[in-house]
């Protein structure tokens, strides 16, 4: 209690209160005059004398007409739009005060409580039983010299303990700074800015030290003395250069603070030091280093999140769905790393606004263009090049961002001597454009367009190609301080084709296409300190063209065949309430009701009851007219999660949720293949369902320097779509006779330790997880592995990944990435048999064996260009070696009958160390 306090309390001991009748009444009127002039006029009509600093009254004009009104009421009115308070003393003096209120009495318990209050480092609002005057500690050594900002006007009658501080944070160019963490020093309060740089935080009355931290942004500390609700906009400088931390870092306090379980934020800027293969910085590859997200192997497209299938992930780019987010069989992701701002991955509890997929949501946001000046970023790698340009359209209001990426592999292939290779083709590109326009402070429009295409040939007589296209439009509108809303329109299309031009009469051109259009309205209502609501509706129309084939060339005998179009409408209403029960318990209650209707025109095949679905049990075809409802499915989806603070830096979270999925991939491959098609639920194929419960502990150490989380989950799934052995899925009109629907279960524990500061930073993740499928039926042809649970194709119990980054200096850094995974299950042949004059193998039950364990070490060394401020471009060199140990990790194992004999082969994608050098520059 050695602190010195300046107590802005005038201990006036004479009278307890100012009696109303003692204040004289006057008549006076002002028309747009300076306050100082108005006060003079009052002084002239009364005996009062005003005391104030002139600078408080500068540029303040007042207007008013008062008849026989008490002076105090006149002053109330004059100052109502300012931060000024006043105090009338007994000796006819009026003191004006900025922000502060003068109390002429102490709270009842002032002396009794004094010990407690002042012995605390800060004046905790928790301790104040009743609100009294506000004390400001002006001699807090560490915080001395901080910029002090006073917000709001102190209100004598205030009974509130907390106020809402909001504002917008911009950089020197006036662009909003998104995802910037704001932390209130010494209090367990934090928030972050949204995509538009706006923040809102509930703060205790009084002094708060707001710290901001963000990559590429200079850290700041500001002392804010809060007297009332208010707005605090500020500008932060960008730090000279970003040389920081690797990683995936959620907002500093998010680990323990947020109510949702299983959420990860990946910021592209932070993953640029992770070693890469073939020079591509890749947001989805970074995701795979985190617990709970895996792929089936190198070169396997698609993600398995918490034991879920690859078709159960909703991958959104600016709210539009991308069906195949990879190039080249998953070796590159189809999302341009330079144009991407951040990716939020929900693998546990999915917010109620999202639906239609069971396992996860990857919410990827393209960054807003620079509204201030022309800027760009480019990279040159051994296989691809990439460029992103940003240009203001209307200065400070709107900007356009355009990005493109392409490979020069075709050019390289053509210049090779090998005949087989130079007849091959392998090309891909993707382009993205985003336009953002701030119309006024209440309206903002963002539009995104995206297109990606791959074309490749594996044999000389066929060419495969696939493409993704999406457009999305978002209009954000602020209805009031408390209510904001967004209208989102999106359309996306995925298609692939195979062109076969061989020797025989069977040349063809085959195509597949699906298209979806969604309208979504989501609203945010900040009801109070305790309740924040999100609600809305969405509706999505799916149109799937499951396949058509046309003859290629006059010689071809292939007949045109078109599998009839499928249509479905998926709609949902959702509401969620983030309910702060008390300072320790936060409950996020979400409910989504989803409803799906399979729509005509369609011919649906009806099969005998209680019989396997095959051509033998087919009964009849039922015809449905256009837009006639074939079948409906749907139900409530619960999205419930809660966080409880055991200690300020230790929390426990739990969640329960379920979901429905109405669109499924058809694939008879063990991994994702570009010829996988999507199929809508119909009369014979029911939607998939999942139920997940998770529980986790979250702890931050040493002032958030270390973050630790342990999270366990248990998941059950119904109606997973699987396939009969040897199923033909492409161009099959009676697809239901080839597929099976079964149950799934998955469980696991995920452990993550993260260090985000210091010369050495990175993270260590370990996951123990299992994933099983059961395909049972009373009919043999619909049973797999005797109807027992068996490991799924991506069941990899142990998964360890370590990402470490070491900064030698501001310019030089090195990173390492180590991965270990249990080998994935495979179906092995367990013997041979003679048949048809040849030798064949026969296979075990599905997934009874495992390929050898997978491990890999990658290293990279990064060098930043110099940090001179005046230069054309900032450069960044990265030299990396993928698979330094040269481990030959088998990707698949297969058995081939050649000339009647069996041969066993194993394939691996990168079996030797792959060095890569990439040059990036930014201007």
């Amino acid at each position, binding site marked *: 209690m050695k602190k010195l306090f300046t107590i802005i309390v005038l201990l006036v001991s004479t009278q307890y209160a100012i009696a109303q009748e003692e204040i004289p009444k006057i008549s006076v009127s002002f028309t747009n005059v300076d306050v100082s002039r108005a006060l003079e006029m009052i002084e002239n009509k009364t005996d009062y004398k005003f005391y104030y600093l002139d600078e408080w009254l500068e540029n303040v004009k007042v207007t008013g007409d008062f008849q026989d009104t008490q002076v105090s009421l006149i002053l109330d009115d004059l100052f109502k739009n300012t931060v000024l308070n006043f105090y009338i003393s007994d000796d006819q003096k009026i003191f004006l005060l900025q922000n502060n209120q003068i109390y002429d009495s102490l709270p009842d318990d002032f002396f009794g409580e004094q010990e407690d209050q002042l012995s605390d480092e800060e004046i905790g609002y928790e301790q104040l039983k009743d609100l009294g005057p506000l004390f400001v500690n002006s001699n807090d050594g560490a915080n001395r010299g901080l910029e002090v900002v006073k917000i709001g006007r102190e209100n004598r009658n205030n009974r509130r303990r907390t106020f809402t501080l909001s504002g917008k944070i911009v950089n020197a160019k006036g662009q909003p700074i998104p995802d910037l963490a704001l932390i209130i020093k010494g209090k367990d309060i934090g928030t972050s800015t949204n995509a538009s740089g706006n923040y809102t935080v509930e703060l205790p009355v009084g002094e708060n030290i707001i710290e901001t931290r963000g990559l590429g942004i200079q850290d700041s500390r500001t002392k804010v003395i809060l007297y009332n609700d208010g707005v605090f906009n500020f500008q932060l400088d960008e730090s000279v250069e970003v040389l920081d931390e690797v990683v995936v870092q959620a907002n500093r306090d998010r680990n323990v603070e947020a109510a949702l379980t299983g959420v990860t934020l990946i910021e592209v800027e932070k993953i640029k030091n992770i070693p890469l293969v073939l020079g591509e910085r890749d947001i989805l590859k970074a995701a795979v280093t985190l617990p709970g997200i895996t792929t089936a192997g190198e070169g396997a497209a698609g993600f398995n999140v918490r034991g879920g299938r690859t078709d159960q992930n909703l991958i959104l780019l600016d709210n539009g769905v991308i069906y195949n987010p990879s190039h080249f069989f998953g070796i590159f992701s189809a999302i341009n790393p330079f144009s991407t701002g951040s990716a939020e991955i929900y693998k546990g509890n999915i917010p109620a606004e999202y639906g239609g997929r069971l396992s996860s949501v990857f919410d990827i946001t393209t960054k807003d263009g620079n509204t201030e000046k022309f800027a760009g970023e480019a990279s040159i790698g051994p296989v691809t090049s990439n460029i992103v340009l940003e240009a203001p359209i209307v200065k400070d209001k709107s900007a356009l961002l355009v990005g493109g990426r392409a490979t020069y592999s075709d050019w390289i292939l053509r210049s090779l001597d090998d005949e087989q290779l130079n007849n091959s083709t392998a090309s891909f590109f993707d382009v993205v454009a985003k336009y953002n326009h701030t119309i006024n402070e209440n309206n903002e429009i963002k539009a995104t367009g995206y297109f990606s295409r791959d074309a490749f040939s594996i044999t000389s007589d066929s060419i495969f190609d696939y493409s993704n296209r999406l457009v999305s439009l978002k209009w954000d509108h602020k209805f009031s301080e408390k209510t904001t809303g967004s209208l989102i329109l999106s359309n996306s299309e995925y298609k692939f084709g195979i062109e076969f031009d061989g020797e025989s009469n069977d040349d063809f051109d085959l195509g597949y296409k699906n298209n979806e259009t969604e309208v979504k309205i989501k609203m945010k209502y900040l009801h109070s300190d305790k309740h924040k609501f999100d609600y809305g509706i969405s509706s999505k129309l799916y149109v799937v063209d499951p396949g058509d084939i046309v003859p290629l060339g006059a010689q071809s005998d292939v007949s045109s065949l078109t599998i009839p179009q499928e249509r479905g409408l998926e709609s949902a209403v959702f509401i969620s309430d983030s309910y702060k029960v008390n300072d320790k318990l936060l409950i996020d209650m979400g409910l989504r009701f989803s409803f799906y209707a399979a729509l005509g025109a369609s011919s649906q095949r009806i099969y005998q009851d209680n019989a396997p679905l095959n051509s033998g049990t087919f009964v009849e075809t039922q015809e449905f007219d256009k837009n006639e409802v074939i079948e409906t499915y749907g139900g409530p989806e619960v999205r419930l999660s809660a966080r409880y603070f055991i200690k300020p830096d230790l929390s426990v979270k739990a969640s329960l949720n379920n979901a429905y999925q109405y669109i499924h991939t058809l694939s008879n491959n063990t991994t994702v293949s570009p010829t996988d098609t999507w199929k809508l639920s119909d009369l014979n194929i029911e939607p998939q369902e999942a139920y997940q419960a998770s529980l986790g502990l979250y702890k931050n150490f040493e002032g958030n320097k270390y973050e630790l989380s342990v999270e366990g989950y248990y998941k059950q799934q119904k109606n997973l779509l699987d396939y009969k052995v040897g199923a033909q899925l492409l161009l099959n009109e009676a697809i239901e006779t080839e597929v099976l629907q079964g149950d799934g279960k998955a469980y696991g524990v995920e452990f993550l330790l993260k260090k985000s500061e210091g010369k050495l930073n990175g993270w260590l993740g370990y996951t123990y997880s299992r994933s099983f499928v059961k395909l049972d039926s009373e009919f043999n042809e619909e049973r797999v592995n005797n109807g027992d649970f068996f490991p799924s194709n991506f069941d990899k119990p142990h998964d360890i990944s370590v990402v470490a980054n070491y900064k030698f200096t501001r310019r030089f850094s090195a990173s390492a990435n180590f991965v270990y995974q249990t080998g994935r299950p495979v179906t*092995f042949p367990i013997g041979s048999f003679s048949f048809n004059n040849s030798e064949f193998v026969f296979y075990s039950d599905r997934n009874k064996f495992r390929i050898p364990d997978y491990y890999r070490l990658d290293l990279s060394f990064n060098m930043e260009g110099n940090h001179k401020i005046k230069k054309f471009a900032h450069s960044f060199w990265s030299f990396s070696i993928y698979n330094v140990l040269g481990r030959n990790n088998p990707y698949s194992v297969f058995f081939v*009958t050649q000339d009647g004999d069996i041969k066993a082969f194993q394939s691996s994608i990168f079996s030797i160390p792959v060095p890569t050098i990439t040059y990036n520059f930014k201007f």
Partner: protein
Amino acid sequence: MKLLKKHFCFLVVISIVLLFIGCVEEFIPRAGEFNDILVVEATVTNEMKHHKIYLNRTYSFEDEIALAETNAQVMILEDSNNQHMFEESEPGVYTSINAFNVVPGANYQLKITMKDGSSFSSDKMTLPQGSAIDSLYTERIVNDFGEEGMGIYVDNTNAQEGSKNFRYEYIETYKVIAPDWNSVALVNVPQPVCPMVIKAGREREERVCYTSKSSNGIILTSTDNFDENRVQRFLVRFIDRSNYILSHRYSILVKQYAQSNAAHSFYEALKEFSSSESLFSETQPGFLEGNLHSDSDRNKQVLGYFDVSTVSEKRIYFDYEDYFPGEELPPYADPCQRAAPKVAAGHSSEPRCILPVLVEMDLIRYVTDNSSYTGPQSEGGPFITVPRVCGDCTVLGSTEIPTFWEE
């Protein structure tokens, strides 16, 4: 700068090559768990004959050959009233006691009772409608992989409502002429240390032989997606022009089986599981269910298929000269390296005999005398020889002219 460019290209090239080729290597599968399962191979057709059904056991990777399933009771039920009984003619081969053919409209079911009493039945199968091969023809072509050779094609036209699935088997027969055939033979005359090798007249025909080989792959086509139920220019067999089997006269008998959809799916899956695949995608394999089931235990597995199909066959002949007139013959089955093996090596009392042993083991054939041979001190032996296959075609086939052969 030039150096940098070179390195850059190198990096690019290895990256791309890696992407394309990845790394596929052969390995020897380790023997793990093994299931001993009955394998049924049964195809009965519209051809009137003694049909054969093969019953074998699966075998582990170490074992070379399938074990026959012996002493089983095999019969085919026709429309539940007519029975075709089979008897074991060789171990694991069951031949129908009476000749019969399957007829359209009837149901056929295979029933097998094993010696341990367990029994298996097939689904009831009917004969799909099929037609004959319209034409079987050959062309000199360059295939999709840029290899030149002979293509053997099938055309056929079928009724629209007939089966759209076809499986082919073939037996190819070709004439082999030993390039270094000589009427002189070498024989051993016993001597105290090493036998003496002398020339003698050849007693047996070894110059011209005929070899027959059956197809060992699964050859399938389907007209399912075609406008007309017509197979056109379907490549049944491709023979590279450097294959010695083309050298003289070649004949192929192609059999076409018109199959049901179910049988076709089975063969297609079997083929898919056993053929090379793309590096990046792997078909989900599993236990391949056919149309046979255990009568008592639903978890008891059985492999194979009982197929009832319409068969049609056609044979053609061609000579190498017909398509490659005046061109050099394909290389023979062996490079036919000439040598002059020494009579013996070493000077001790027990020298190592070389030439007599080669003659004894019938590994060489005489070509001519070695003119540079002067006596035991010479570099080589007295005769120039070639490996036996170059002078004796019976290594590759039989000298007996097949009964069907047409010159």
